[in-house]
């Protein structure tokens, strides 16, 4: 991919981040934004910029980077342009964990952790199911196992929500639609570790994913342990997706959409596709979160609904080519 394309993605990300910090329901002048950022404004300005908008923009960027990189690697490893982290059952598993926590009246802070546990359990279950059927090296079998685990998760959610009060159901649904509204510096720190480790692992696997993309037999012929590389990509991709789910709930279609945009921008090897998808995903989710924040005041839109509105037309327009 040409340097000018990289520069373009970085510039879009930076512009999105600046708009995200400067613009919101509370109208602030550029000077007030700067005063808030440097701590010299009123206590409200400082709190809005430092405690609300900055962590929110950073969290959205990390969510987008994690989902973009995860989707790029999974599409490469499965040789399927429709693959994305959620097809592994990650979304369903995370939702089950969160909804059970809500139904048990767990403190709000525990809900994302329960989501993370559910996401990791779902991935483990998908891989165990695939292994039990003897198909752990076969991307299609693992994807099918993920779909089945996701369907089971949906049933479990319905059971868990049968006896909870209306506000708790609303809370659970809100979380399942994704939102960066509760972003905090603690979440930014936690997710930055997930994203750094996950993206580094996927970049290290990028060369093997390039070979896998040629086909399993060809890859095996070039000395790649197909089953082991596939498993490593799944675990790293699921870890990234689960971390984003714990931070911001379920934000769909980013992992599907962004890798294709990266390839359209000229990325060919998985090292560049994963890197460009991470940066592009960050820009996309920061912009989507801005829309979620300001489109429908005084309420917010769910972030996952905004990314779905962007992602579904793209998905449909490319379905024939991707499948």
């Amino acid at each position: 991919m040409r340097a000018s394309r990289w520069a373009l993605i970085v510039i879009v990300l930076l512009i999105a981040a600046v708009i995200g910090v400067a613009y919101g329901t509370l109208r602030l002048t550029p000077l007030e934004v700067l005063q808030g950022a440097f701590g010299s404004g009123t206590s409200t300005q400082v709190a809005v910029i430092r405690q609300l908008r900055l962590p929110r923009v950073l969290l959205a960027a990390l969510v987008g980077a994690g989902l973009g990189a995860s989707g790029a690697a999974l599409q490469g490893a499965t040789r399927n342009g429709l693959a994305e982290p959620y097809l592994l059952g990650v979304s369903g598993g995370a939702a089950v964990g969160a909804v059970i926590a809500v139904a048990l009246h767990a403190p709000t802070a525990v809900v994302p952790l329960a989501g993370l546990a559910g996401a990791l359990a779902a991935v483990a279950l998908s891989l165990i199911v695939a292994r039990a059927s003897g198909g752990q090296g076969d991307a299609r079998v693992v994807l099918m196992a993920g779909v089945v685990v996701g369907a089971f998760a949906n049933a479990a959610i319905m059971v868990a929500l049968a006896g909870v009060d209306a506000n708790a159901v609303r809370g659970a649904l809100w979380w399942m639609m994704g939102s960066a509204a509760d972003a905090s510096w603690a979440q930014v720190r936690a997710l930055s570790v997930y994203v750094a480790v996950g993206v580094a692992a996927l970049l290290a696997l990028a060369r093997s994913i390039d070979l896998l993309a040629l086909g399993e037999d060809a890859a095996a012929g070039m000395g790649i342990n197909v089953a082991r590389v596939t498993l490593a990509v799944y675990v790293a991709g699921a870890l990234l997706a689960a971390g984003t789910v714990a931070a911001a709930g379920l934000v769909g279609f980013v992992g599907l959409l962004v890798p294709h945009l990266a390839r359209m921008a000229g990325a060919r090897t998985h090292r560049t596709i994963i890197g460009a998808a991470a940066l592009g995903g960050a820009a996309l989710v920061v912009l989507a979160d801005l829309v979620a924040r300001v489109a429908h005041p005084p309420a917010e839109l769910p972030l996952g609904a905004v990314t779905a509105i962007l992602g579904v037309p793209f998905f449909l327009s490319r379905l024939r080519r991707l499948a």
Partner: protein
Amino acid sequence: MLSATRVHRAFVALSCATLALGGACRTDAPQPSGARDDFGDMISPVATTPQRIVSLNPTTTELLYAIGAGGRLVGRTTWDLYPPEVRNVPDLGPGLRPNVEAVIAARPDLAILYASDDNRDAARRLRAAGIRTVAYRVDRIADFARVTHVLGELTADTSAARFTVDTVQATLARVRAATAPLAHPTAFWILWESPLLAVGGGSFLNELLVAAGARNVYDSLPGPSPAVSFEDLVRRDPDVILASPQSRRHILADPRWRALRAVRTGRVLVFDTTIVNGPSARVGASAVSLARLLHPGAI
């Protein structure tokens, strides 16, 4: 032309007027004042006073206890928690889209539903099973008075209903009079943290806030519990925040909330969490407790 029902009602009114000094006014053949419930369905007249009542709305359940008909309950929802003796009444499940078979199995001679569209089908099925069924919305303070009178007529104890309504309205009037001359602080009443849910203009809690001498920063939003964004709340910057004990702890521990003046000035107040279900007979006492919270010493 006077119908038999209206003749009967006139007779009941005359009897009540005669018996007013004696205090009690019971009728053997109860007839509701409105011929239709809040679904617009006809209320079938009966010759006997209901003895087995299923109430699938915590607020109507409370009202039945308040007018002395609680002992006739044979079914309630999972969410009925007040008064404490209601726990001895069989739990028939949810109040929205109720378990119709469970209601029929309780063999009620009167079923009272919440008049939400979700319950239209249940009302139809219960009537088809021969159970006298009525549905009422009890969302606002005006609904409290209206439905309490209807329940009094349905259970044949109109004087108890009137006494309940009069007592509550007298208390509300006392609270309004006490808070009217005071400065009304702006208030945000948090119902849920994620998503952030506020008490909106469509809730009886908004009416309680007004009676207790405050102005809800979200009174222009029509719903009872609208979702709002945190930054919009910062923009409205209320004088006071009303929160549950748990929410108050979270608010004080989360640095984001320092953006609000009410948090920085220590004006995050804990409300009585038992009052939020609906405008029951405790609505007067709720207004008193809220007024004392907002204006200590005023009442």
